[in-house]
């Protein structure tokens, strides 16, 4: 029998042969999978089926090869050793004797074993069956197969004649599109470059530069809403640029193309928003009794891109009647910049140096400006500081309510001051609310004086309302419509009646105030306010005998040309059928056709969708979805969504549907007439 040492060595070689066969089978399987995957990709299979087909083919190949090379025997291993290092067939003989024992003289067998063992000691199994190279090859092939299966169909040239609506690479099409966006300098945003984008969002005023790489002879960018942009050839390819002021859709077409190879780009323009500025502190109008004091002002401002300046300015109104003088000034402001877009300001406004006098009024507001050189300054809501004894009659520093309806609010102010006056004497022994109707002399001369001051204010408000009755006509149509009511004396339902009622209440309130009866006056003041609100709620307008706009200019009499006289034609304010309705209908037909034959849904169609209304976000979204659809399923979904977006846009632009339904029975009239006749006859 062969010696165990010889058999061990041969077995080691046999094991390495087995490992090598496995490696080779895996390599062949991976190569097969890669090849099948490539074919599947070209055929247009999606990712999951492509992987399944490739793996099944690879495993089958590996299995077949493994089966065919599985039976590496000891004899084969011995033969391989003999081939590597000539051993005079001693190892083969020894292996044969082990595999198929036969009668051999013991001295001969011993000699064979001895010589074989001696020579085998010189043989290296790693050299007989090297495994390094198969491992490297297998790794490379596996990586290649994985790469082939991972890469999408868009990277692989298509089989000629394959039906697909995808954007196809073509020697005449746009092979690559680079978009360089340079925002306006004031925005502080960096320029950016994008490769093959479908949609970009830019700040208004950004410079958009297109660079197209193509084998075509020229490229034209069709920009919705403006003239086509012809790209000129330069070192990078074809390039052109424009300044994006509003959202648009761009179809970039190679010259001489038949509509294929078009690139679509949706440009969404974000306008530079004006700054927002507010004054949370004090946030109300103020009244101060003296001419000195200090007001704390807090300002907040923010902008979408960045603020340039923030200030608080005031106007002082001095004097009265026809001799009012106005003085402008600025309040020193300490600004805290949280970042470039959010600023806070704080000021301690000392009034001492403003040379104020009793009755003066200060109007102040915050003004913010952003970095856009074409932007306009934005100012906050204006607040008022009334200076003087009258303003502080009841107590210094009370706030005035916001002014919405001038006359109603003025009356409200009288009510407010009356309430404050009553509240100020609540603490006095004889000043309880229930005792207010008692002779007011017990409250002193101050009480009567304050009542009379309020009576003056009430008279002022009343005079303003009286003036309003003869005020300017704001809408002649409304006034004309109201005129017949006046003629018919139907004042009980008109705003004018409420106005008269309000004047009556005001007069009575004034009388009560002059008598020092603030509580009774308060009831009448409130009635007057209610009447005023009712009058304004009816939105009535009141006629002056000859409105300013209708006065006859005698200087122009007989100076006109009668031949130019034309009848008045009212401007129609209603809707007209959208001018691009025909185009929208044609596009809808194209979308419908594309949804049935799965062709034509490409970037060119996406550009048409986006061009319907570049400002419509849903249309832009649908266009982008269509332009980026990668497979048949997503393309169909994008077409479906595009049809819905176009439909929604069209319905919005068309006249409203008749949503009223009348049941029209042709015999009902005859029957009703007959019943009416019989009813009258029975009487």
């Amino acid at each position: 029998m062969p010696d165990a040492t010889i058999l061990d060595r041969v077995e080691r070689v046999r094991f390495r042969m087995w490992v090598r066969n496995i490696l080779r089978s895996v390599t062949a399987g991976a190569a097969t999978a890669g090849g099948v995957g490539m074919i599947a990709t070209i055929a247009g299979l999606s990712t999951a089926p492509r992987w399944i087909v490739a793996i099944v083919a690879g495993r089958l190949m590996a299995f077949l090869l493994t089966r065919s090379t599985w039976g590496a025997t000891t004899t084969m291993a011995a033969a391989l050793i003999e081939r590597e290092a000539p051993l005079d067939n001693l190892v083969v003989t020894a292996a044969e004797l082990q595999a198929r024992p036969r009668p051999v003289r013991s001295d001969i067998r011993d000699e064979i074993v001895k010589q074989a063992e001696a020579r085998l000691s010189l043989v290296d199994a790693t050299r007989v069956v090297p495994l390094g190279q198969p491992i490297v090859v297998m790794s490379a092939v596996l990586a290649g197969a994985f790469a082939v299966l991972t890469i999408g169909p868009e990277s692989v040239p298509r089989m000629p004649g394959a039906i697909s609506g995808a954007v196809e690479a073509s020697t005449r099409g746009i092979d690559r599109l680079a978009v360089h966006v340079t925002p306006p300098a004031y925005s502080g945003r960096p320029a950016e470059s994008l490769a093959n984008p479908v949609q970009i969002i830019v700040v208004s005023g950004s410079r958009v530069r297109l660079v197209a790489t193509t084998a075509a002879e020229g490229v034209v960018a069709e920009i919705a809403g403006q003239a086509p942009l012809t790209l000129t050839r330069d070192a990078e390819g074809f390039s052109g640029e424009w300044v994006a002021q509003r959202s648009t859709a761009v179809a970039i077409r190679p010259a001489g193309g038949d509509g294929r190879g078009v690139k679509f780009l949706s440009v969404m323009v974000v306008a530079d928003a004006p700054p927002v500025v507010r004054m949370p502190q004090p946030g109300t109008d103020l009244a101060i009794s003296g001419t000195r004091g200090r007001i704390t002002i807090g300002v907040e401002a923010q902008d979408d891109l960045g603020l340039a300046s923030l200030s608080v300015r005031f106007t002082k109104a001095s004097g009265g009647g026809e001799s009012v003088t106005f003085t402008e000034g600025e309040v020193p402001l300490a600004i805290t910049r949280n970042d470039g877009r959010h600023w806070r300001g704080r000021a301690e406004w000392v009034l001492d140096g403003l040379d104020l006098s009793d009755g003066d009024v200060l109007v102040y507001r915050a003004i913010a400006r952003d970095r856009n050189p074409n932007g306009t300054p934005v100012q906050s809501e204006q607040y008022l500081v009334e200076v003087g004894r009258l303003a502080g009659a009841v107590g210094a520093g009370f706030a005035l309510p916001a002014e919405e309806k001038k006359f109603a609010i003025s009356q409200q102010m009288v009510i407010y001051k009356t309430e404050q006056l009553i509240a100020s004497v609540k603490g006095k022994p004889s000043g309880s609310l229930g005792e207010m109707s008692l002779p007011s002399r017990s409250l002193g001369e101050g009480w009567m004086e304050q009542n009379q001051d309020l009576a003056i204010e009430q008279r002022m408000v009343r005079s303003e309302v009286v003036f309003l009755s003869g005020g300017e006509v704001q809408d002649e149509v409304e006034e004309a419509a109201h005129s017949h009511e006046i003629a018919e004396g139907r004042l009980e339902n008109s705003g004018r009646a409420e106005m008269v009622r309000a004047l009556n209440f005001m007069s009575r309130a004034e009388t009560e105030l002059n008598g020092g009866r603030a509580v009774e006056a308060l009831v009448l003041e409130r009635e007057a306010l209610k009447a005023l609100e009712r009058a304004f709620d009816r939105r009535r307008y009141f006629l002056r005998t000859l409105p300013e706009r209708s006065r006859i200019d005698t200087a122009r009499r007989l100076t006109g040309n009668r031949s130019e006289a034309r009848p008045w034609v009212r401007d129609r304010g209603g809707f007209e059928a959208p001018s691009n309705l025909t185009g929208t209908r044609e596009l809808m037909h194209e979308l419908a056709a594309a949804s049935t034959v799965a062709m034509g849904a490409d970037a060119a169609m996406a550009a048409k969708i986006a061009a319907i209304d570049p400002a419509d976000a849903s249309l832009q979204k649908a266009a982008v979805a269509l332009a980026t659809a990668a497979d048949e399923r997503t393309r169909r979904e994008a077409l479906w969504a595009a049809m819905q977006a176009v439909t929604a846009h069209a319905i919005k632009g068309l006249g409203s549907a008749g949503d009223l339904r009348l049941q029209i029975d042709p015999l009902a009239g005859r029957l009703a007439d007959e019943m009416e006749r019989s009813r009258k006859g029975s009487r």
Partner: protein
Amino acid sequence: MSRDALVRLALRTVAAAIAVAAIADPVLTVPRPVPHRVVVARLASANVDVEEAAIRSALPGADIIVRTASHGRLPCAPGESCVMVADGSVAAALPDDLDGPVSLIRVGTPPGPNVAIRSALASPAQSAAASGLVHVALTGTGMVGRRTEIHVTDGAATVGSAVHEWAADGEAAIEVAWWPLGDGPRALRVAALPFDGEASAIDNAIEVGVTVNRVRTRVLVFEARPSWASAFVRRALEDDPRFQVEHRVGLAPSLAAGTSGTRLTASTLDAVPVVVAGGLDALGAGEVALFERFVRERGGALVLVPDREISGAAARLVSGQWTEHLEASPSAVGRLRASETLRLARATPFDTVLGAIADRPVIVVSPAGRGRVAVSGALDAWRHRDADGGAFDRFWRSMVLELASAGEALQIDLRQQIAAAGAHVPFTVRHRQMETALPRAVTATATCGAGAAEPIRLWPQGSPGVFSGTVPMAGGEPCEIRVAVDDGPVASSGIAVSTGAIDSVSAVMRELERIAEQSGGGIGDRATLAEALAGMQAPGEAPTPSHPMRSPWWMSPFVACLGVEWWLRRRSGLR
């Protein structure tokens, strides 16, 4: 005579008798059993093999023939027993000559959540310059928490869509806005998108026929004196391209302004379907008489827009007691808002109330004679015309459009706006005029697809000015009908061609049940099939004419007689 001779003579006689009888071909009447032929009309899109097998086992010995419906008619002939196996997806009409009982076997919907379209209604005429509405009625079972997407498609294009969230099972009404893709007859497919696990999808779609046109509705606004109430109604109509508004306003006793050709005469009123009248207190008796004729005889629609209580001659135009109410703040009156209102004491059953305050009608449409009178008691609704996103304009446009559709001088009433290819669609033409005694010639043509206009014969009906005709939907293309009156108006309408169901499953099943009940047939389902077919007995024996001499077996005795006679002669030595 020998015995052989006698035999030969007898044989010759028999052969001759057979020949003579064959030439005479006598007819005999004998009672014979009649074969029981049963036609199973397959009116279902689902598999009905089980029902057909059950019918075979329920009618042993019957000759079962399975047919499908063609051209929308039941595939049964006179003398055949007819059994309809239907699930409501296929409609079929009863042939006029079918006199036997027709039974119905219903194929039910499998249990599970289901949504079905019960009906879909759209205005038959649609302006190309406006969007339209389809009113869809749905029925949902097991749909709580689900959502149903409704799509309106014109061909392959989606022209409208809406979504309904089901809060409870039962019925739901949805309005789907759509926009016209082209002119002429259009078949709109209204479909509720099926969802995974839905019990049945055969009830998810219906087709609706609509004719898209560019006709502008003519409206005359007549103001006896300037009135803001009617002026703002006129403005609402003028701002819409669907209307062609003409107006006339009386400024003084002998002074009027407006568009040309609007003097109030019979011919002026003949040309317009709707008149909007304002400044009613200034209307004269002659004008009121013309308006009465316009409504009662001509069949037009008169819209009265008062701005104060209706008095004077115009009071004849309205029925019922109207009283004026003034309020401090405006209230909702239907889709309008008003603080000054005229309210009707009580509406009649014929009135359509479009707005009311405290159960007192304010905006009312009343039939009168052949026409209609609409009264808007919302006196100062025009003051609030900008409220609710222009509800004032929408209301008046919608109401005038509806009234105009019934007030046209020449109208085409189609039995259906959509039909299957090959169907014959009947229609009625009505011509109304102010001068009823004036006879006019009325002609009609039909243009189907790109073909030439074919004349349609019109048959006078009982009433003057009323004619009927039929349009054959040949070639499977939409047809446009055009009717013209000599020196008078022209009207047109269209019929679209359906490719799917026109009626809902429930409506089809109701119609099939009606056919079965009227014919005396039974109605059942798979479980009650035997009872439903119980009345379908074999017809028994019937006297049947017979020609006995036409049997080929007569040749055997005939040849045998002649052959034996020849053999006997040869045996006797004769030739």
